[in-house]
């Protein structure tokens, strides 16, 4: 929709150190954002090994966890984001006809 085109996506990826799954997740996320949200997304990576208390505050269980902070509502996607289809459903950024 028209509004959707202008809103900025704020995405936060929770990882625990530089594990293969984390690296894969970040790579997958970047590729996906470039493909669908080019120019209107921001990715922040939170390493829970550095900020362990954030696991409780932000209710993280699985690693990696991707949180869509904006636009609301908050959505959570877990895994290395290799299943692109599911990530798009989870983030609610499935390309729509009117956006093409």
């Amino acid at each position, binding site marked *: 929709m028209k509004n959707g085109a202008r809103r900025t996506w704020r995405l936060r990826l929770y990882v625990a150190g530089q594990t293969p799954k984390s690296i894969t997740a970040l790579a997958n996320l970047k590729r996906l954002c470039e493909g669908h949200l080019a120019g209107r997304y921001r990715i922040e990576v939170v390493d829970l090994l550095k900020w362990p208390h954030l696991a409780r505050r932000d209710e993280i*269980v699985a690693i990696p966890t991707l949180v869509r902070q904006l636009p609301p509502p908050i959505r*959570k996607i*877990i895994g290395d984001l290799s299943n692109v289809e599911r990530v798009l459903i989870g983030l609610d950024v499935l390309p729509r006809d009117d956006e093409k």
Partner: protein
Amino acid sequence: MTATGRRRTHEPRKRTGNGSRAAGGPLAKAPTGIPGLDEITHGGLPRGRPTLVCGGAGCGKTLLAMEFLVRGALDYDEPGVFMSFEETAADLVANARSLGFDLQRLSARRRLLLDYVRLERSELTEAGEYDLEGLFIRLGDAIDAIGAKRVVLDTIELLFSGLSDGFVLRAELARLFRWLKAKRVTAIVTAERDGEHLTRHGLEEYVSDCVILLDQRVMEQSATRRLRILKYRGSAHGGNEMPFLIDDHGVSVLPITSLGLAHQASTAHVSTGVAGLDGMFAKKGYFRGNSVLVSGTAGTGKSSLAAHFAKAACRRGERCLYFAFEESASQIARNMRSIGIDLEPWMRRDLLRVHAARPTALGLEAHLVAMHRLIEDYEPRVVVVDPVTNLIAVGSDIEVKAMLARLIDFMKMRQITALFTSLTQGSAAAEATDLGVSSLMDVWMLLGNLEANGERNRAIQVVKARGMAHSNQVREFVMTDRGITLVDVSRRADGSVAIGSARGAQQQQGPAGDPKRSRKRRVE
């Protein structure tokens, strides 16, 4: 907080001296602080290791686990982390309040950390491989934040309903249990019982040290809770099912085993309250700490004897706790006034407390726990249970006797002299029906009616009195407006005892009786 002041009578029993230190010792244990549980586990849960507590819905897993943390924080200087997968922190706080635990205060003092792990499959999308490292970090951070020594995971199996990759979850749970051991925290992991299986997802495979099973079932219209130690590696444990209770004081387990016979036997005497009756026990009455059984059919004067005993205690300035399972306090006071025993002044001075309860109102174990608690609170020197038979009716056989034995041992340890009345049916069966209970008693008296010469006269006899010379006579007594009065023994020339109007006739002819037996004729 009410919890702190409560009965901490059972110190963890140290085994070979390695006691409670270091997770290395194979028998190091962490006391739960839950009355009864530390007894049957001989000191508590395996220290530094996870224990599995499983059971069906509503069986008390969460509360048991919570009390383990609260007691740890309050009594053993071991802060705890409660990670809940089921109830929110607010719910936990509210539920624990009903047991008298103030979780908010404990949290504020950093003795407890509640963490609700919310996992809603509908709110979570899975897109690729993951692990539970976030949970590990989260738990680890919570443990470090308050220096926790104890951890509860309740109910961790809910991970399986929140996440779909069973393979990953199983691998991660196995890792979690190894991790908990490495962290050296004493943990309780709860799990839902699932039909034939101990736990729905086979958690018992990972927790190999200690498994406790909880169960709640309805028997004779009252719900009873049972606890069983299924497994305790490297430690003796009672394999029996133990009744347990959850009430406003928390969890209490009632071990069916007895406390043992380590109590001190007193040589001090306690008056029976009836002068003539004291004479039947080496002139002085019962030993302090004795348990006394008074049996008889209806209307033979059991309660009157109990009232005498209670009043005598009050007159000595000792507190008396009277458990009435048939009558209310005011009924007892009124009835006793009619035979000249005025109990009300002692009630007013709080030297006599009457606890009246319908036996059917609660299950047997609930009664026993209530009795324990009242005794602990009031600290009486003398206890009356009138009648104990009503308690027996609530429970069933062996269990009842075992639990009664426990109550008796408990009172003996405190040197409380206890009198139990027992209502028996018919005369022939009287002794038989009491046999099971009487073996627990130090003194056993039988009240009854003697029918002879067209008269019915009241009689009392001492069936047994451990460690005491006691009269072998069947003594006649009368109920006067001053209570029970034993009538002087009056013998015929042939040595037989004359009773009722025959006694009157005999007395007019002058005293009789065998001089050799005068030792037993101590009659005031």
